[in-house]
């Protein structure tokens, strides 16, 4: 149902504004270039269409359709109230300057559109332009808050559909900021998407359930979005240590709550549940290198996630403080973030303007720490143990948003034969998002996961297939996508499963430390056994 949609259409009609069909999309590269290998997005169920606000035939938020005029008005008024607060120094000091910059100076040149994987993979559907949602919020702001001329700023009708669809639309962006990189003026459409999410969450109490109720709130109530409490975490990590000891032949013990250790290691607790070998490998490497380190069993300090970065500044600050407090209590010299991109950015960069005094404990990425281990020569690596193609995925949060580009590549060169290392095109700071950014990796209601695979994750899958183009595409020739980030791993796992890419074509995925441990001379050969998933 490809049709030209205009900005003003957001206020009109009922039901979905667009629907992406197989014909709209560019075919995937071989071996997925036949329609039979690339199933279309299943339609949203009739029940969901009847009950929830619909933008594009999928639903992220389960926003109920207002039943009365009063409910409709409430939606509009709450949104306006939140929008006004976004421009208040008290309520939004966190992002006021970047927000005003992006609201005022867009030249509407659409240069940013071609940088967006979602827009391109949709077959250039205007709804997914980075500027679409920005232009809607800009017009609402100028017309209804500032009462400025619509001749100058453009016109828009404001009704409950405008508001509800705009909020849904803010959850059609990975907040990867690739578009911002190409803007000749410096406007940031990703930031505007996040500000819309903020209005919804901080003012209206609307957010994706997976991110808020089952995510940041659960972390603040129980200690982790996985639901694990202190006891469960310690038990689980003990199991991991036992397994890793058996797999590597190296006695492995993860230290907990060691006061005065140099390093507090902060993992995404999702690793402990879904990819236990990852924290296990960190333990093997840190112990072998003789680092002074510990994990914390303190409340929320065993889970490095901070979903607030995706949608809510208050939730963000709460979690960042809990992490810093745990480090302060142990008296560590620094916090090191494990393989989790958003946790990296949250605590290292964004929390930089939140933590002061005794809570201002240095934070750093695991990448330079791991590179130091490699350079120290304390661990002997045998590259030939990783004699299979490895392509590196760059998590947006680490590269484009933190400038950590080189250490992971240097590490790979030390543990994988150089002729086996592949790069995606483009990579580094110009990489594409895995498709799971801004919370999508954990969002799967209705047909949202299908939409995600076809729209946000498709570009990454395309890049992976292109990278392996000269390799035999069967399971006898395993190929490794190295994704040093929990969220990216989750998204890449999902898309590999969706296309059955491991069973059919031998495409496998994992983190960076797994490759390091697999290459350790002191570890039993065959640590990566291709059976974990």
């Amino acid at each position, binding site marked *: 149902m490809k049709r030209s949609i205009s900005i003003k259409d957001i206020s009109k009609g009922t039901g979905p504004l667009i629907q992406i069909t197989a014909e709209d999309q560019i075919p995937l590269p071989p071996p997925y270039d036949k329609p039979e290998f690339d199933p279309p997005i299943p339609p949203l169920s009739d029940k969901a269409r009847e009950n929830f606000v619909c933008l594009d035939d999928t639903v992220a938020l389960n926003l109920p359709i207002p039943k009365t005029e009063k409910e409709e008005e409430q939606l509009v008024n709450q949104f306006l109230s939140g929008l006004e607060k976004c421009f208040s120094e008290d309520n939004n000091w966190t992002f006021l300057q970047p927000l005003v910059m992006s609201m005022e100076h867009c030249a509407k040149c659409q240069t940013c559109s071609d940088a967006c994987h979602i827009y391109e993979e949709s077959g250039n559907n205007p709804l997914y332009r980075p500027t679409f949602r920005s232009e809607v919020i800009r017009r609402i702001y100028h017309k209804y808050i500032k009462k400025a001329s619509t001749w100058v700023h453009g016109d828009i009708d404001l009704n409950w559909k405008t508001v509800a669809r705009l909020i849904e639309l803010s959850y059609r962006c990975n907040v990867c900021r690739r578009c911002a990189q190409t803007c000749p003026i410096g406007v940031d459409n990703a930031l505007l998407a996040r500000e819309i999410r903020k209005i919804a969450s901080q003012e209206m109490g609307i957010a994706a359930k997976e991110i808020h109720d089952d995510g940041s709130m659960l972390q603040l109530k129980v200690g982790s979005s996985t639901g694990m409490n202190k006891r469960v975490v310690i038990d689980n990590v003990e199991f991991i240590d036992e397994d890793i000891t058996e797999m590597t032949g190296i006695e492995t013990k993860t230290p907990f709550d060691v006061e005065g250790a140099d390093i507090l290691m902060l993992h995404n607790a999702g690793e402990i549940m879904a990819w236990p070998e990852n924290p296990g490998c960190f333990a093997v490497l840190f112990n072998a290198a003789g680092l002074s380190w510990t994990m914390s069993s303190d409340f929320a300090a065993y889970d490095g996630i901070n979903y607030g970065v995706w949608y809510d500044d208050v939730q963000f600050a709460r979690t960042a403080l809990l992490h810093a407090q745990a480090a302060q209590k142990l008296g560590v010299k620094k916090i090191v973030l494990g393989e989790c991109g958003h946790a990296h950015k949250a605590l290292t960069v964004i929390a930089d303007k939140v933590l002061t005094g005794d809570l201002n404990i240095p934070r*750093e990425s695991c990448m330079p720490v791991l590179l130091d281990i490699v350079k120290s020569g304390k661990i002997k690596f045998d590259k030939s143990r990783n004699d299979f193609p490895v392509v590196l995925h760059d998590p947006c949060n680490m590269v484009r948003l933190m400038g950590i580009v080189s250490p992971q590549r240097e590490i790979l060169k030390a543990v994988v034969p150089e002729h086996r290392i592949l790069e995606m095109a483009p990579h580094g700071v110009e990489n594409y998002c895995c498709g799971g950014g801004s919370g999508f990796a954990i969002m799967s209601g209705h047909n949202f996961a299908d939409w995600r695979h076809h729209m946000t994750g498709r570009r990454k899958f395309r890049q992976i297939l292109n990278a392996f183009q000269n390799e035999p595409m069967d399971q006898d020739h395993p190929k490794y996508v190295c994704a040093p980030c929990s969220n990216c791993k989750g998204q890449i796992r999902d898309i590999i499963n969706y296309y059955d890419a491991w069973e059919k074509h031998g495409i496998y995925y994992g983190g960076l430390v797994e490759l390091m441990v697999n290459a350790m001379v002191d570890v039993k050969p065959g640590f990566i056994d291709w059976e974990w998933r």
Partner: protein
Amino acid sequence: MQLVPYIVAYVAIAIFIVAVIARFVMWSKMPLHVRWELYPVAHEAKKAHYGGSYLEESEWWNKPREVSLLGELKVMIPEILFLVALKEHNPKLWIRSFPFHFGLYLVIGCTVVMMGTGLLAAIAPELIAGGFGDLLRYVILGLGAVGMALAIFGALGLLQRRLTDPALRDATSGADLFNLVFFIIAFGCAFASFLIVDRDFAITAAFVANLVTFNPVALPGMDAAFYLPTISAALLSLLVLYIPLTHMSHFVGKYFAYHAIRWNDAPNLKGGDQEEAINGMLVRPLTWSASHIKGDGTKRWADAATEDFSK
């Protein structure tokens, strides 16, 4: 009557200066915000070429931070002069936007040379009496004629694209079209004046010289062809006045977009000078209404951030 173009020009220049300063002050006075940098960051001396940062270094807080002004200039100057980002990411628009902007720069350059020549003529007339004066007049002629031609060509191209490209059209407001038309009319009029009555820019240069020397006298030749140069001067003055009042003031915003946001990677070191400002932010009140915040105007950010949900 002879005073009118002078008055319009003085008022326009005054409003331009005040509006640009006001924008600068507004942007500078905004409260501290969280870091939101975007790589590559140009002042990363040895790492900017691939987008790397000091966060690639272990224990970066114990190492001296290198901020390369040269690195920034290497990006900023080509960006300002040649719109490098647009060329790379949107070449179709660049072939219109670049001549437009570069034409404006040349016209600004031409005006500056006219001002300098006018001042020199007042202070040391012997200096510009000979060959040097001729050279300046050629420079004025070249910059002005080429600049106006480029700007008109670019503005027409931008208008054509805005009207014919569906994506651009949907996002275009009445004012966006008006702005381009205004440029085309003002520069078109000035170009016509150049072609018809002011082939060597002598009238315009005399007008600018009188402006900078505060000598608002009737111009030679104004009687013979009064309207075109006068209308051109008035329209260009109005344009100068209008630009900083619109989103075309992005030349101010862009400075902040880069220096205060995209490249602002200055870390908040323990005991450093940022901590006090941050503490000042944390005691600000908040009024966000969602049930997990319940900001009532007395609750501060620090209170909201330290609420205990585990009980």
